[in-house]
């Protein structure tokens, strides 16, 4: 995805910039030491306070990263989607999506608004029109991109050391999964179901996104990897022909279960259904590009290669 690549480049540029500026550390809670220009995920140069002390985090991925690097205490407002970790829920919520409450956001007097890519550039502009400092964090599509986002948020908040620690932990856990599935003989074919409101035409994850990356790293082959769209809609007819060995039910939170998948007309013929390899999955672990992506990778790897995790 070009936006992800751009974000990764922007983040890498920022790390260089941070080194060049030699930002001094500060105690959380102390007033910012100053301001500096940092390039955000929309390619704009944003004049941010260093470090930010009152952060409004709109987007669950950013919120989860902030808490994971010990910057949760600097978060004064969040969007409704930011419900993890549990501590985040005590922070005042200001709406979400298109009903983001701009007035409540302003009233929380943030010195920095961190917007995730689930919010549109137009919404970032609306934040700036309200005289807020808005910083757009692009979605990563690889674990390297995730690590650079972690580093970016670390330097914006003055938690560089914790960010580096988190980056190392992500890297070593990804490495550990890679080693476990490396020796697996088969790489099962996987269908990731995003939404089967119409079970004859379910939506799935094609190439270019994190779901595809996770399936590959977990030792599987995404049957939709060769599609020409990032989120294609498949026909059940095609699914029957492709006959995937594993079906991951990413729409489990909307009430879909392995049993309801089995009960769909014609699906009983698919290898995954016959072999009992239809698994419910917590979609939050793959749809929020935050630190829990590694949990998602480990969960996926256990489903695809249970033999590699025995003992």
């Amino acid at each position: 995805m070009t936006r992800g690549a751009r974000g990764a480049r922007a983040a890498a540029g920022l790390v260089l910039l941070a080194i060049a500026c030699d930002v001094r550390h500060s105690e959380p809670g102390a007033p910012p030491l100053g301001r500096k220009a940092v390039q955000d995920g929309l390619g704009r140069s944003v004049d941010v306070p260093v470090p930010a002390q009152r952060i409004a985090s709109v987007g669950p991925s950013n919120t989860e990263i902030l808490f994971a690097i010990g910057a949760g205490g600097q978060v004064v407002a969040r969007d409704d989607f930011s419900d993890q970790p549990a501590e985040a829920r005590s922070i005042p919520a200001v709406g979400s999506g298109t009903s983001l409450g701009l007035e409540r956001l302003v009233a929380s007097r943030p010195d920095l608004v961190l917007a995730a890519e689930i919010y549109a550039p137009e919404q970032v502009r609306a934040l700036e029109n309200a005289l807020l400092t808005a910083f757009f964090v692009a979605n990563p599509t690889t674990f390297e991109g995730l690590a650079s986002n972690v580093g970016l948020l670390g330097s914006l908040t003055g938690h560089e050391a914790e960010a580096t620690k988190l980056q190392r932990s992500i890297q070593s856990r990804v490495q550990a999964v890679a080693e476990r599935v490396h020796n697996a003989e088969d790489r099962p074919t996987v269908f990731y179901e995003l939404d089967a409101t119409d079970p004859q035409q379910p939506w799935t994850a094609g190439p270019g996104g994190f779901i595809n990356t996770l399936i590959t790293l977990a030792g599987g082959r995404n049957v939709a990897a060769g599609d020409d769209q990032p989120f294609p809609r498949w026909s059940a007819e095609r699914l029957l022909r492709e006959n995937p060995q594993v079906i991951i039910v990413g729409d489990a939170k909307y009430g879909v279960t392995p049993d309801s998948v089995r009960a769909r007309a014609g699906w009983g013929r698919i290898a995954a259904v016959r072999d009992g390899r239809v698994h419910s999955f917590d979609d939050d672990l793959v749809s929020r590009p935050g630190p829990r992506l590694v949990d998602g990778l480990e969960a996926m790897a256990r489903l695809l290669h249970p033999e590699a995790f025995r003992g």
Partner: protein
Amino acid sequence: MKPLRSPYTPCILLLGASFLLSVAIGAEWIPPLRVARILLGGPWLSGDPGPEGTDATIVWSLRLPRAVLMALVGAALGGSGAAYQGLLRNPLADPYLIGVAPGAALGAAIAMVVLGPASMLGYLAVPAAAFAGGIVMVLAVYRIARVGETVPVTTLVLAGIAVGAFSNGLTTFVMLLKKGQVERLMLFLWGGVGLFEWGPIAAIAPYILGGLAVLILFARLLDVLQFGDEQAVQLGLDVERAKLLLIGAATLVAAAAVAFVGVIGFVGLVVPHVVRLVWGAGHRRLVPLSTICGAALLLGADLLQRAVPWLSRTPVGVVTAFLGAPFFVYLLRRERAEHS
């Protein structure tokens, strides 16, 4: 155009052809000869472990129930559309435009959000709730649009828009109460949430077939009603009872069509018009022929949706809107030309 001699033969042939094409053509290519072999061989071919069995499953479990449901719904929309046009003595009446379909969608949406669509209780409750919503809204439109004894085009369209927008607003509200329903909602409002399985088909088939039987058997009442209420009374007809019977039957049919497939517009408008142009305006022919041709048209629209790659994300109601909206404009213009 001069009425053709035997109108039923071409219509039934058209329906048969579109049904066979619907089963033969889909997202995946299966050679026609193999489709024929699978159809003749019976549903147990699906047990075959090889690729032949996969194709049999595609035909028997995916395509056939979909084709049957589409044929039922198309028949319901065409037949009830013809009945509404006769009842209201207004050529622009159609289940979508006069509030029945939006009202039924509202009822069905409430039942679905409360019960979940694919439960046993849901199979009974969703069509019932759809019927309740449909009858409330069509009576509202009728009351608002009626001027003296007739229902003029302009007031009918305006009342239909107002009531339809109100219903759709409520449906949106109800659907969004439940998280993560936006996709389902969009599809439902455009006729895309097909539960293409035998359960929903069994749930709505009795209402559709029963209601259509009533409409076809009593179609001559529609002919009498064309003279106006006063004349009809003089001809010995109990006008109020006749209207109640026909509105009830037509609404039952249209609401059942909406219950599991969502709102599909324009079929009920276009089909009776084409039939009238080709085979004349007598309702004893118009109602059954619109039923058959409605089934054929919706099968055709659904076939387009499934077989044309760039329509794969589009609900079938959008396809019928593409086909039907220009036709609607043409009718409005002609109506205006006649009045000036």
